[in-house]
């Protein structure tokens, strides 16, 4: 009997081969784990670190401005480093001043303020949100939290606060969905999960998509074997199906060969 046949006929051969094949990927996995950077948390902010809000000049607004729509650039004095997100006090003051000056134009004022605090403010900071910057997003979410509270305390301007928070939550949940599509790895980091949790709690669910690997793992753990086989087969390309069949046939042949050799050996004795 040749040495090859003898090797495959030993009862522990599949175990030894399995150990050899598993050992290498395990080693590579451990090496990869060593290279994963440690998780980051949001820095604690001191009061000095928080930028002050930009100054407002509501007195520059006239009746024509209200008809044509309010412009953030006209009433906001944007000095270097100031925060373009108006505080709830600024919004309240601005709204009340304008309503007092133009009491018959309340609807227009509301619409103007909402546009200013949503679309126009977004134009000012859009560049910062092109790439994933969790600290900036957290800053906006903190701002939304103050507006959310203000909505409960200031019923006259409730619709403004509600519209602004809705717009930004909707925008940010969409951006978080986009970021994780570009870089799926961020889904495992604390900052991303924190931001997703904030949006989810406000009922703006971030659509975190499963990768093929995650889908496979989930079905495997849930014992959805039929689905797994069907889905894998329908997703596979022609060459992948060919390779699979080749490996399958080779395995069947090896097993048959082993069994026949074993039977022949036993019969000879």
């Amino acid at each position, binding site marked *: 009997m040749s040495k090859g046949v003898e090797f495959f006929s030993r009862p522990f051969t599949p175990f030894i081969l399995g150990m050899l094949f598993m050992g290498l990927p395990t080693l590579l996995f451990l090496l990869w784990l060593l290279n994963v950077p440690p998780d980051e948390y949001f820095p604690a902010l001191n009061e000095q670190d928080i930028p002050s809000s930009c100054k407002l000049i509501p007195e520059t607004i006239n009746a024509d401005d209200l008809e044509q729509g309010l412009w953030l650039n006209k009433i906001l004095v944007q000095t270097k480093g100031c925060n373009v997100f108006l505080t709830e006090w600024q919004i309240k003051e601005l709204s009340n001043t304008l309503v007092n000056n133009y009491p018959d134009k309340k609807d227009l004022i*509301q*619409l103007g303020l*909402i*546009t200013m605090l*949503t*679309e126009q403010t977004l134009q000012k900071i859009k560049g910062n949100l092109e790439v994933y910057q969790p600290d900036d997003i957290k800053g906006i979410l903190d701002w939304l939290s103050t507006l959310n509270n203000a909505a409960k305390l200031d019923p006259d301007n409730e*619709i403004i606060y*509600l*519209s*602004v928070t*809705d*717009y930004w*939550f*909707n925008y940010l*949940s*969409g951006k978080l969905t986009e970021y994780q599509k570009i870089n799926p790895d961020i889904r495992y980091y604390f900052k991303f999960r924190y931001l997703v949790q904030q*949006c*989810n709690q*406000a*009922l*703006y*669910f*971030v*659509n*975190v*998509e*499963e990768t093929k690997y*995650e889908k496979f793992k989930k079905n495997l753990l849930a014992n959805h074997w039929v*689905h797994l086989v069907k889905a894998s087969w*329908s*997703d596979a390309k022609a060459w992948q199906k060919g390779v699979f069949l080749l490996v399958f046939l080779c395995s069947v042949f090896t097993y048959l060969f082993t069994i026949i050799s074993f039977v022949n050996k036993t019969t000879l004795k």
Partner: protein
Amino acid sequence: MKFIGLIFAFSMLCSFNLIAQYNENYVSVSSETIDNEIYSVIEMTRKDERVKVKYFADKDLAGRSVYQRYLTWSKNKSIIASCSGTYYGMDNKPVGICIDEGQTVNKAEAAMDALVLVYRTGGIVVTDLKEGNLTVQNGPDNLSLNLKNPLDRTKFFLWSKENYATVFQTHLLYYKNKLRVGANGDKELRERRFLAVARDDENKIRYYLINLKGNNTLYNATVKVEGHLKNYTDNIIYIINLDTGAQDYFEVRESKGQMMNEPGFKGNKPLNVSKNLLVFYFE
């Protein structure tokens, strides 16, 4: 005494059968094999408003699952068909705007054009979010809203709460005589299920629930279904996609209430694990 018992049992059996039945003049079920592919179609007319739709999007406030809610609600109802509606994410929440009887489930808009409104009266309306001209009944008046506008979005959510509206978002595949899905869309080959709405010769609304059992991309399936529907109607208003991915729930009943067992009228997963259900029923 035995005689009375028998009469009672017989009358109970009759009443059960009557409850379980729907009128075949309003619903027809057919299945056809074309090029080795099964096209299963449930055609329902809204004439006399006997055929209605109900959507269950999420657990209720008491924590009862979608299936438990469906079981409680469906007692004494003649169910025609039940299937999954929109897609669900990893966190078991619907993708896109979703409201269940005024209760907000998800406010985040997804990149899908169809906003589906299921009225308490059993009617279903689909609007194209890109057009921005959603009209909803607000008491005696109509409220016109553009959901791309922040103020209108807030008004919409307030309206849906006040009116116990049920809403979900999905892909709009065909609208105003145009295909709305490109050949570069979802390339995954799988079974597909659509809801098409059309007007008949009497200008009445007809619903078509179409199931394609073969493996198709979203685009190929839409083209096939649009072509196939020409055998039924010339006036398709829209076609929307119903999820057959992670949650392929689909059950169809015959007019006498029995479950249909043909492969074209069954999903791959049982209803009792459904995360959302779109139910067509007869009243």
